């Protein structure tokens, strides 16, 4: 595929490109543009600011850049933008990509290696793109006897589920795609999907090692779901709400980590298990069951599952930040006015930018903390895992619940803060 044919000539190549461009222009002018106009004639267009939002407004940007501001303002406040780009999927995917790079360099540093080094001029910064290109150009092998629709669909559902979880994370005041009243329950519901997807995929791939891996994923869910849920309960008690934004708002005086450190610890351990990261990577234990439920994955199917995994990592790190580390709360370090005496349309909001900054910073700190065990721990065994979950972590979680209850009923803490 990749090699050029023997009768390759550069002139022919350029000619074919010119020919292609010519035809594209012809088709666009004759077919696509009229089609757009016809559609625009019938579709009622929304108002952006005081003007009707039409494509012509974009063209007018060349003349007067300030005229596009209301359009951008309008666009970034739509649900679709929020779900797709900023607090939602694209932001999460960007952080996931950064996480992969950071993980590799961080682990390499700990292990006295260099890590990715040659792709990209600086310290292998383009390694991820290279890996993506490699994965996308690899053949996808589906084992015979596999459930083909499920086999193709599971990676997509995996990514979609991870994307859905990102929609619930509040990044800055007002900046959340879906500000649910039952946000934390919704996140638990979505996160509970992943082990089932692992089981689904292992069932679909009709092989023994994935099958055991899927069962192990299920056992991991069983071991850690209850401590995971219980460790978030003190926050609900303290903030009196199930809404994630309100949880952050109620931490304006102190982080809940101060009152619920044991819960935070339990939450951290459980999220490691939830993420199948190293002490708990039993479903992918390569020395026991080849690659666990990922054994039959190849090419882009593997790539999508990895993308979903790292997006999930972002979601859990962000959830930890939201629950225990005060979300976007932090000292105001950005100035109120970016450009002094600017009187035009306002797009820059100092509070929001500040919130995003602190949130991202804390999330990255948390991601580093989640990455750390991979460097220092071996894998755990499944009976120890279940034992740890049921005998130790549940008890620890309850201890913190009772501490918080005592604090509330003792009148030391009210939702307003310390008394």
């Amino acid at each position, binding site marked *: 595929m990749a090699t050029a044919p023997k009768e390759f000539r550069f002139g022919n190549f350029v000619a074919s490109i010119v020919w292609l461009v010519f035809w594209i222009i012809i088709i666009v002018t004759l077919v696509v543009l009229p089609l757009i106009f016809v559609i625009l004639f019938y579709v009622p267009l929304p108002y952006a600011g005081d003007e009707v939002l039409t494509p012509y407004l974009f063209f007018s940007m060349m003349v007067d850049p300030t005229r596009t501001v209301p359009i951008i303002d309008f666009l970034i406040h739509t649900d679709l933008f929020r779900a797709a780009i900023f607090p939602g999927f694209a932001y999460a995917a960007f952080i996931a990509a950064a996480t992969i790079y950071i993980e590799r360099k961080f682990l390499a540093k700990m292990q006295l290696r260099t890590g990715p080094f040659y792709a990209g001029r600086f310290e292998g910064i383009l390694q991820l793109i290279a890996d993506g290109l490699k994965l996308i150009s690899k053949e996808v092998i589906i084992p015979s006897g596999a459930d083909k629709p499920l086999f193709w669909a599971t990676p997509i559902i995996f990514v979609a589920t991870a994307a859905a979880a990102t929609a619930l994370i509040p990044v800055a005041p007002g900046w959340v795609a879906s500000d649910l009243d039952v946000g934390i329950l919704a996140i638990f519901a979505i996160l509970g999907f992943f082990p089932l997807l692992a089981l689904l995929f292992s069932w679909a791939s009709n092989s023994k090692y994935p099958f055991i891996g899927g069962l192990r994923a299920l056992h991991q869910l069983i071991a850690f779901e209850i401590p995971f849920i219980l460790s978030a309960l003190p926050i609900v008690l303290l903030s009196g709400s199930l809404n994630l934004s309100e949880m952050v708002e109620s931490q304006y005086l102190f982080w809940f980590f101060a009152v619920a450190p044991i819960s935070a610890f339990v939450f951290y351990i459980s999220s490691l298990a939830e993420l199948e990261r190293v002490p708990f990577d039993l479903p992918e234990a390569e020395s026991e069951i080849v690659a666990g439920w990922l054994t039959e994955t190849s090419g882009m199917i593997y790539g999508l599952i990895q993308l979903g995994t790292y997006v999930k990592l972002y979601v859990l790190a962000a959830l930890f930040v939201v629950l225990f580390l005060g979300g976007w709360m932090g000292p105001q370090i950005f100035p109120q006015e970016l450009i002094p005496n600017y009187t035009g349309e306002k797009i820059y909001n100092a509070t929001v930018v500040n919130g995003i900054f602190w949130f991202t910073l804390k999330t990255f700190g948390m991601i580093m903390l989640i990455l750390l065990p991979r460097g220092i721990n*071996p*894998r*755990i065994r499944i009976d120890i895992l279940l034992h740890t979950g049921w005998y130790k972590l549940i008890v620890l979680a309850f201890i913190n619940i009772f501490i918080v209850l005592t604090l509330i009923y003792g009148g030391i803490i009210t939702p307003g803060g310390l008394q």
Partner: protein
Amino acid sequence: MSKEYDREFETKFQETTRLGLEVVKESEEDRLMTLSVGPQHPGSGHFRFTIKVDGDYIVYCDPDPGYVHRGEEKMSEYRNFIQNIPHLERPVIHDSTNITYSYSLAVEELLGIEVPRRGQFIRAIASELNRQVYTLYWLAIYGIFLGHSTMFMWPAGDRELFIDLLTALSGARVTHAYNIPGGVRNDAPNGFKEKCLQYVKYFEKRLVEYEDIFYNNPLFRQRTENVGILTKEDAINLGVTGSVLRASGIPYDIRKVEPYDVYDEIDFKVQYMKTCDSFARAYVPFLDMRESCNIIKQLLDKMPDSGEVRLKLQSNPKGQPGESYKRVESGRGALGYYIVSDGSPKPYRVKISVGSFRNILALPHLLIGSKLGDMPSIYWALNYWPVEADR
């Protein structure tokens, strides 16, 4: 594992499991899953064993080595004593000095020669360095078998120190072809002693880090402690050797038991543990590495500064008719060569008795009744090198 479950398996498998016979009842057959571990398994190496799992427990195990059988013993009969050296070190390229060491000792007995004193010292140093290389490699694999990626990288990196020393000594990184009947191929280069001391001192500091991150790690302890108990009686019965034997409480080290060359002048202790579990089997090689550092220091200290390192043999030496059996302590235990000579320049029969081949006998014994998750920690703690076992 609970007591009841254990006993059930014990009674069932006590007699027959070791022989690899299948004793699972017909009615239970349908709920077992047959898994083959290897040859293309990240947890096996060039080796296959078929296991049957009942849920999380292994109920049957049948080792099937031979994927890298080269017929070294047959090949040796067609080459003369010197020419055998480069191919005999192929089974364990990470321990190639030791596997040619005992060959050289055996051939020297047949030829009736003795190595000059400086040659003996350099041989012993090369042997110790190479044992470090092997043990570090083994430790690296043990780390990654348990999912500890740092413990894969650190020993694999520190191994480079000893490889560097051996490169300076012999000229090749892994396949040294350094020991030869009559001594060693060449003298140590200038500055080797200082370099070696520097590296060994640095390595001793690194060993403390290994202990911190790996051996004292609670998760590692949980994975290995009380896993795969090989009692003293079983160890003797199965005839295991090397670190597996010493982990079962028997201080048996060829360097002490039957000192070859200069080892009777060296003051060192045989490292052993009495806990008999996987942890002991993983920890004894570590203790050996630490002791090996001491040995290297002593050897460097006592080594004569000059002298011959190799006897000048005739180009195609003929052995006296007879046979010899010589052993050295390799990274995997006793490594013996049994060589029969009929008076010609080629050996009549060469038998290599290797530690790996003896240790693998304990694998079914230990695996049956244990959990699937214990499989890597038991298997690789047996100090088994598939290529060496196959020869």
